[in-house]
């Protein structure tokens, strides 16, 4: 039915500076995925890079999705939005500010707060991986 095994999806620049805190799981995942993906080198010095990835915004919020009749939280929704852009050496935008939003939801129970926090942490990791994948696809679509 026309499907073919995906080929390499190189990013249209040889080296990239990743403007995210690499000591955070998100920054580390971003760097790792870019470095693992193709021929693009991730460089530590912004001045050496052909292009710079800038994270303009990275917000995560937790909202009440539903309440029990007793007014306790029954479900939470996690929403994370990352707004980013890619600029070249001259500061020209290769990719204008673009946003990726992902959501996850989970059941909550105040009596199991520690367990639910661990679940939340797992979901956050899952969301961030999802965001990184979507960011990579956006960057791969840049026409050089």
């Amino acid at each position, binding site marked *: 039915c026309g499907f073919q095994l*995906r080929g390499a999806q190189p990013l249209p620049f040889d080296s990239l500076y990743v403007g995210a805190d690499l000591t955070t799981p998100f920054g580390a995942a971003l760097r790792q995925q870019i470095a693992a993906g193709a021929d693009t080198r991730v460089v530590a010095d912004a001045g050496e890079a052909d292009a710079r990835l800038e994270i303009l915004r990275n917000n995560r919020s937790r909202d009440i999705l539903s309440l029990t009749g007793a007014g306790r939280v029954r479900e939470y929704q996690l929403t994370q939005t990352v707004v980013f852009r890619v600029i070249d050496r001259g500061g020209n935008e290769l990719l204008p500010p673009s946003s990726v939003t992902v959501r996850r939801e989970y059941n909550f129970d105040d009596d199991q707060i520690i367990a639910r926090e661990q679940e939340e942490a797992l979901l956050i990791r899952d969301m961030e991986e999802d965001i990184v994948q979507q960011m990579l696809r956006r960057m791969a679509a840049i026409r050089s």
Partner: protein
Amino acid sequence: PDLIRSPAPRLVPQTPAVEPSVERVVDVPVEVRPSSVLPAVEPRQGAATASPVGGATVTDTAGQVAAPRSQSAEAAGVGDDPVTMSETAPAPRSPVAASPLERGATQVSALRIVGVRAVELVAEGEAELVRDSRVLTADRVIYNELTDEATADGNVRLSQEDDWLIGDWARLIVHEWVGELDRPRYVFSRQSQARPGVAPRTIVGTGGADVVYFEGENRYRMVNATWTTCEPEDPDWFIRAADLELDYDREVGVARGATLVFKDTPILWWPRMSFPLAEQRQSGFLVPTIGVSNKTGFDLAVPYYWNIAPNYDATITPRLMGRRGLQLGGEYRYLSQNYSGEIRGEWLPKDRVTGESRSLGAIQHDHRITRRLRASLDYNWVSDDDYFEDLSSRIAVASRVNLLRQGRMSYQGDWWSVQGLLEGYQTLDGFGPYRRLPQLLLSAYRADLPAGLAFGFSGEYVDFKHKDSAFAEGRRTHLRPQLSLPIRTAGYFLTPRVSLNHTRYDLGRSLVGGRDSITRTVPVFSIDSGMFFERDSAFLGQSYRQTLEPRLFYVRVPYREQRDLPIFDSGRFDFGFAQLFSENRYVGVDRIGDANELTVAVTTRFIEQSSGAERLRATLAQKYYFDEQRVTLNELGKPAVEDARVRRRTDVLAAVSGRVTQAVSVDSLWRYDPFDGETQRFNFALRYNPEVGRVLNVGYRYARELLDGREGLKDVDFSAQWPLGNRWYGVGRITRSIKENRVTEAVAGVEYLSTCGCWTFRTAAHRFATNPDRVTNALFFQLELTGLGGIGPSPVNLLTRSVPGYGKINEPMSDRYFGTD
């Protein structure tokens, strides 16, 4: 005296011919240029010389003067061709664009100019004085070269870049921008500071006064003045002040004896009020928030914002609650390179309902000691269990049950990290969670071992405490080394992984009939694999890359008896996609579920060719069990909370989410039990959002049963924001629990955006359950005056949360700036 007169009219050269002169000591010429047809009759005098180009006459005086930018007068009179001008007169009044004057050069033009060299120029009839971006026009302008002082009479208009003032009479030292203007009307424009993610806006302040004093380039002081961001003619609201100071260096307005007039009605009075001129942070009283709720009665809060320094601020909020009395709240925030935090407090000396003093305290602090070493503190406290329910009208707060008290320190190495935690809670309802005093964590990951191997380790030591003696207490040590061999290409991935879970419990207070010291060792093997296929496809006229991603995930965990282990921090993972691909069906390590199971899933995505943006994603998954379940969350000596699964195959899980068209998005999840032919869970959300201010959401949530046997749910919700016409918008949400036959939450409100866009009115009523038979009803009002800055806990927060896709009607650009998702 030396008189300078304009010569016979000639054509005005586009580039003013200002001839350099040896006599000029300061390179700031004044050029005089009559702009119209009247022939000057007096003969030219003084040191004027005729320009060969356009007949411009330049007169030099030996300039002098302290201020280098302003003095030294050269007067040149240039007339226009009478024929040309008689047809096109009057000449355009803004020569700034047309004549690129030298920086600092002054040009005076008028129908007739009479001057006393180096002393005074009198320009009459459509007189105009231009220097850099400053332009003064009037019926008559007298300009003194020595003092750089201009006096203007009749139809005075003064402008500087985008700012301008008009009035009857003015006296102004042009360079210093010091002087006064009688009976001014003014328009000052400034851009709000660009913040990441927010488009800068132009804030236009306008008004009038008896007199305005110019106090330097960006400062004005006015007597009996008004200020508004509305249209200058007949503004809907304005601030009227006996004394008004506008300081565009600090971007602050200060009004003394100020009245806020809305629709010709004075609504508020302040002895001294300061307000932001360009929407930036500013000390002063914020606009009060007004509400009514059944818990507090009439509720008025008047926050005072104190902008102490760029990196710290405070808000002090006296709050009057009709039923309960006067509360004082305070919040202090600070931010530095390496740390940030917030301290909050609330104090109600005597609650008129309970007769007691009630209070709240909270501290949050994050500290980056080095780049790798961080510490944080989060401590929350309230005086009594009903505090939030009684005193807060906000659902996110009213529903709080466990208040965190936590100190944390972590160190991040290159491939390893450690963390220490002390954590407890103040519990307002229920038996409360365990305290972790302390928890120590060590984790490590190395992906660069020989043969492509990756090594991971996590270790945890926790001392669990519980205030209720019915709960077991004790120390738990958990060590988990793991080894994996990830193979990844663009087309497929394969990750086999082995790990060992070794856990030791030393119980101080054990389960009934249980032992005090227990060890458990469980090996885990898993293999995760997937492939990525792609093809080009078209859908609704757009070209997409469609992916097909099959994934297989196998887990093998041998059975170990775990019934005698207490449940400290574990629970069942909510059944969803994340759970399908996790090695343990429980969160927390008190139970490692036995498994011999395979998850089969396939995902397809539609990715926009041009941008790489994911538009739609659909997934179908199912899990096959090859053995029966033996490990459960049940504890020795306690009632069972989980029934072991008997079936070999789980439910089918299907999900579709994405933005189907520009306006329509869906998010749905369906969990179906093919064995019994039952739907276990079904969530469906549909959003129609054609533009900002128009959104419709329909949602349905069904769960047969929730975690750990808790009762299921069946909720419908509907929410919308929609124009009602005539600049009115309706907003609302209703969530109904069909199972409990009860509305758990309802919001209804209206918004009005004024024609001029300079104010917005919002009101919203909010009703939510706080208890099986109690509700909180609250009513909020907000009048947002554009440009007066961000205003307190308004209904906007409530509406943003309850109506997904809600757009602030007075900020139509806010969502579009980054609107490419």
